[in-house]
């Protein structure tokens, strides 16, 4: 049997914290162009799974491959440079810098200390910042200090910071948490738009939102994959209804 070529491959991924297996033998394949949503009850190991992929936590066992590159033991910045970026659950932006500067820092040029000292704000950098700012609905707020943005705008800004590096895989942890209905719609639109030609793994609880964005859904429970498939099938799965959706 010939397997289709996947972008992200997780094989038998396990991490154990003092004997507690937060993620236990997870195998997961995400194709290029796919937007995968991970759902599951609290403590199911969703965030830990993202931590493992982006290198924040090192796995006890198993293998992570992205575009034929093994990420398992790489330091965080190397994983980012391989095209994998991560958005955190609470918006992680630089509060004292402007939206423009936040995006500029996220530009891949000048990533070493000396590179940063001699970094020049060239027109291609500025153009890219304007392009991304437009995409994330912040084009008019470039000179605003990031801490003055609304909660939803901060979430967008962080997504924009990820886009600056033109990543291949986006890992997004609850991107619409704390957003208004209108903002959720805009975010869904944004995600559909930016995930073209890329892959994404999104953790989300809002089922309406999940239905709008997901190509495929993976349900996690107690560190393991409980079910996987299109949203319509998942919603009918009796095991999923019991541990998660039924509540």
């Amino acid at each position, binding site marked *: 049997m010939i397997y289709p070529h996947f972008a992200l491959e997780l094989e038998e991924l396990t991490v154990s914290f003092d004997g507690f297996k937060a993620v236990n033998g997870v195998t997961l394949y995400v194709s290029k162009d796919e937007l995968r949503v991970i759902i599951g009850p609290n403590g199911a190991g969703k965030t830990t799974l993202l931590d493992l992929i982006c290198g924040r936590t090192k796995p006890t066992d198993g293998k992570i491959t992205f575009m034929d590159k093994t990420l398992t033991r790489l330091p965080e910045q190397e994983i980012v440079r391989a095209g994998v970026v991560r958005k955190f659950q609470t918006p992680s932006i*630089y509060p004292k810098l402007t939206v423009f500067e936040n995006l500029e*820092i*996220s530009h891949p040029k*000048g990533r070493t200390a000396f590179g940063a000292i001699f*970094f020049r704000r060239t027109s291609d950098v500025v153009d890219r910042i304007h392009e991304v700012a437009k995409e994330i609905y912040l084009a008019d707020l470039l000179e605003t200090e990031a801490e003055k943005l609304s909660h939803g705008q901060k979430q967008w800004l962080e997504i924009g*910071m990820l886009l600056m590096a033109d990543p291949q895989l986006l890992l997004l942890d609850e991107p619409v948490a704390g957003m208004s209905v209108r903002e959720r719609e805009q975010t869904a639109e944004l995600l559909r738009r930016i995930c073209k030609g890329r892959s994404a793994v999104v953790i989300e609880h809002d089922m309406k939102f999940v239905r709008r964005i997901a190509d495929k859904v993976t349900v996690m429970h107690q560190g393991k994959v409980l079910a996987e498939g299109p949203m319509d099938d998942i919603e009918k799965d009796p095991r999923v209804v019991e541990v998660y959706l039924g509540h």
Partner: protein
Amino acid sequence: MNTLYRSMLGGRSGLIGLAILAGLLLIVFPLLLEPFRLNMMGKYLSLAFVAIALVMCWGYGGIMSLGQGLFWGLGGYCMAAFLKLEAARNIASEAGTDQIKALSTVGLPDFMDWNQITELPWFWYPFKSFPLTLALMIVVPTVIAYIIGTAMFKRRVGGVYFAIITQALCWAMEILFVTRQGWTGGINGITDLRTLLGWDIRTPSAQSSIYFMTVVGILVCIVLGRWLLNSKFGRLLVAVRDMEDRVRFSGYDVANLKTTVFCIAAAMSAVGGAFFVLNVGFMSPKLVTIEPSIYMVIFCAVGGRMSLIGAVYGTLAVSYGRTFFSEEFPALWYFLMGSVFILVTMVFPDGLAGAATRGVPAAWRWLTRNFREPPPAPATAAVKEAQP
């Protein structure tokens, strides 16, 4: 040229600030102060190098170093070693033959002789050459900062833990320098320094020249610091301070960034140490231990830890206060220092610089509002009507 003007001098407002400081240090102080006080200013200014370094490292980068005296001291000791060897050579050539016979070791620093060391230790040899001394003065502290930085930041040691470790290292250095008497002059330090390349540094004219050199050094450090902080590197430091993980997950090696700023701060502090030795003519381990290192942090906090220029004012204000109050009320000094520190951090978290940029305009508005002569009643009504 225009970008350099903006990045190094900080544009118009930055240039004004720098010009005021330069005017004060280069013109006002030399005209107003008697030579003794001017020399004292030179001594204080050599500490301001550390305060400027701390603005970059602590204020921007968020790396609190309570052991910056370590690097300041290493710079000072390098300079002192060179001056001491020169002094020792001069004594040997000036002394009569009988005296030379009485000395067991010709051309060796006196404290080595007292400690029965008959041959110059190998690590003293480079200090025979002035260019080598200048190089080592920068290289040695930078390499040590690099080792500390790599060891700590790669392991994600930060915050209070890092501060405590720097303090311990600083103390360790003091103990090392005190106990290795024959190599370092022990508790007395390296004293009786007289000439720099044949130029007598103790004369009043030399002292004032050294003062001007120190001021130039300070101004160069401020311009250099501005250039660094106005680059993407400066914004990255702020980013690391506020949201370290985000920087890491934007593809940067955070440990490398922190180590770089720590090394730059170490080199800058070391230059200050060397100027100190030229200003006062000696170096002692008591000057490089924990207490002075904490003072350096206070200088920076009082001046405003986000302002390079503020750091200089902070150093001068606290040092002058220290000299004044410890002369007048020695017992009260520590309590006063402590209260000033608490007051500044609580009322002016941005220090003198913050007070100057925000406090002064606010106070001016308050004053003009409250002490303006009350205008006659009808006029007030007219003004009220005129303003919607």
